[in-house]
């Protein structure tokens, strides 16, 4: 029953100049996309730290979208080139860790591509829906707890509560 009603949580890290404005355009054009995605605005895709993504997964995101200006269109000349290079490596790293690469997707969406934004968001939502909830962090936590049950700083009761919550 729970699995059927499950809706994925998607976080999108987008740059202020292209994708955020592209998403605005999707709005002004009244294009529709699923409500699962929530945008976090940064100034440039070059400023998106991989730690943001890990943190988002840790905090229960099931899928993440990173999007900025098209290469050569960056408002800051070169930010998205740095982003592209960073994400290419980071994507491989996720794969190595056993996290499905489709949970983290990249796309270039310009300020004039409202339609593309909708397509990209819909694709991410569908992909993540097909994959099901992301349990990587939860499992890691559980594993950690069984190995080191009395590590200070980790409140065991919290984990138990989470488990209970899951069982309900």
């Amino acid at each position: 029953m729970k699995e059927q009603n499950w809706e994925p949580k998607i976080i999108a890290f987008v740059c202020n100049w292209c994708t955020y404005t592209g998403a605005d355009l999707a709005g002004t054009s009244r294009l529709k996309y699923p409500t699962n995605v929530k945008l976090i605005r940064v100034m440039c895709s070059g400023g998106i730290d991989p730690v943001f993504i890990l943190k988002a997964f840790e905090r229960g995101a099931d899928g993440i979208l990173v999007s900025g200006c098209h290469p050569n269109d960056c408002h800051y000349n070169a930010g998205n080139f740095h982003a592209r290079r960073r994400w290419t490596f980071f994507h491989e790293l996720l794969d190595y860790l056993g996290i499905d690469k489709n949970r983290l997707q990249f796309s270039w969406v310009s300020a004039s591509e409202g339609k593309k934004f909708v397509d990209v968001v819909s694709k991410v939502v569908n992909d993540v829906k097909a994959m099901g909830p992301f349990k990587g962090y939860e499992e890691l936590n559980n594993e950690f707890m069984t190995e080191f049950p009395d590590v200070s700083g980790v409140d065991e009761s919290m984990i138990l509560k989470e488990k209970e919550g899951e069982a309900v």
Partner: protein
Amino acid sequence: MKIGVFICHCGENIGRTVDCPRVAKACEWLPGVDVSLDYKYMCSDPGQNMIKDEIRKRKLDAIVVGSCSPHMHEKTFRKAAVDAGINPFLVEIANLREHCSWVHDDIDSSTDKAIDLVRMAVEKVKRNVPLTTIEVPVTKRTLVIGGGIAGIQAALDVANAGYEVVLVEKEPSIGGHMSQLSETFPTLDCSQCILTPRMVEVYQHPRIKLMTYSEVEKVEGFIGNFTVTIRKKARHIDEDKCTGCGLCITKCPTKKKAFNSFEEDLAYRPAVYVPFPQAVPNIPVIDETICMYYKNGKCGMCVKVCGREAIDFHQQDKIVTEEIGAIIVATGYKLYKIDKKPDDSPIKGYGEYGYGKYKDVVDGLQFERIASASGPTSGEFKRPSDGKEPKKVVFIQCVGSRDESKGFSYCSKICCMYTAKHAMLYKHKVHDGEAYVFYMDIRSGGKMYDEFVRRAIEEDGVKYIRGRVSRIYEKDGKYIVRGEDTIAGMPVEIDADMVVLATAMIAQQDASELAQTIGIPYDKYGFYNEAHPKLRPIESTTGGVFLAGACQSPKDIPESVAMASAAAAKALVLFGSDKLEREPVVAYVNESLCAGCFYCKKVCPYGAVEVKEVKDRNGVVYKEVAYVNTGLCQGCGTCTATCPSKSVELAGFNNEEIFAQIAAL
């Protein structure tokens, strides 16, 4: 911290798909939220007053407005907050319209999403730090790089508005390509007649400092505060003493040793020369590479004849620094020389047209010199090989333009017009001559432009053939031009006396180097990039650097002049205030955490990261840390993601704020 949440219905725009009262009610219970209200139109006067009243009444520290996109009304709400006495950067906008109500249908789920969005904004605003707008002083002086028609116009406009201008030109004289032209389309005005008065005006203007034979070596600083280093190359002639009598030029024995580049290599010049008789300033230059004195220490004829003792063989390059507020780049173009191709060039060139091999196959600028009354033939049409009058001239358009396989994919824009002009000028002087033009399309957009081309065809009888030329070869003193007439659908062969190639306009050879010196982006062809192709065509992406003329893309004279005046206006806008205000979204460094790896310095697109020495109380440097020049930083935050120790953060978008948003989900 007390936070106020204000949810706007935006009439029905948000209210129709988001249950705004429910959002407001749910947000009341968020930690830190003191008051949460909804209203029909938050951006209206009553809406804003409501925000202001609540701020004052409840002594709120920060506000979150759930409304339209921050790109729309962030400024409005920030202003309201400032009026009520709180810092504008303690205002956050949750985008409930473009990112929620307009893109979703289901009321339940979109209301849930709206609550999430407001919660994220609340969590962010809790961590926001009050910021103050940065003020930087403005040096009200302009540097114009390039003394062609665009540079001249820009310099005159700025100077006439009452501000000082430094005009730097790398050639010995200003004037640029326009001074080489014979007549200009579509009026057939004499180019020099309309240009030279402007050149003289620049020279005599009390507020223009003209630096010819000079190049920009280094640009430091940022908008309003540039320090520019200029190399004034040694002329070997004292500019203050020289009167421009030209005696040294006439007496110089090293004649016919160097091509005259002003005459597009159709003539020779002596070692001491002015590019052309109307040069401004009319002060010669000694070419060290061919001057006898520099070869064997003898000659010195010019020293003997100069009554003013202006010749100085030992003059050195001078380095001058100037304090500048705005830079106008007007470096222009050059013509694509189709024969000289470096080995590593991806551009193939047109070997089959015989340019460089046959003397009578010339390019557009060479033809301008032949047609010009001040040119090497004094305006008579004589072919370069034997000085005979050509009776059949073939003009070929789009040589290098619109041809990715051999040249460039862009259209050079002016060639259709100047080819029509060339053919017309030729027909006007050689009445029994025949002019043929091979073209791909005629692109003559512009006031009186198409009429001009029609005139060439209908009144002057220039024969236009639609098609490309495959080969040009010499046979019995004639040049056989073999091409195709695509309208008639048959091959054509013309035995021409002379061939004129309308070669592409390309970026200056050192365009990319100069761009790196100034710190402006350029495209794959070397043309400088504008900040926005539609709405900011004059500005470069670097603050305080403006573009004028053909350095941005191929352009004709009126367009270059218009762009130059626009660039001047942009500079004047900058000078309109004594201080420059800008958003404080810039990076800052936590010096105690910074390890001094300077990865941030490597990735910064603006060169805003500098090395700062940290000294102990004895004044001994014990570590080097990164320092962000807030004048240069544009706030992209690429450095923050690169920093391994997380010691550099972007104000307004720091890690804590973003983590808070993530955690709020």
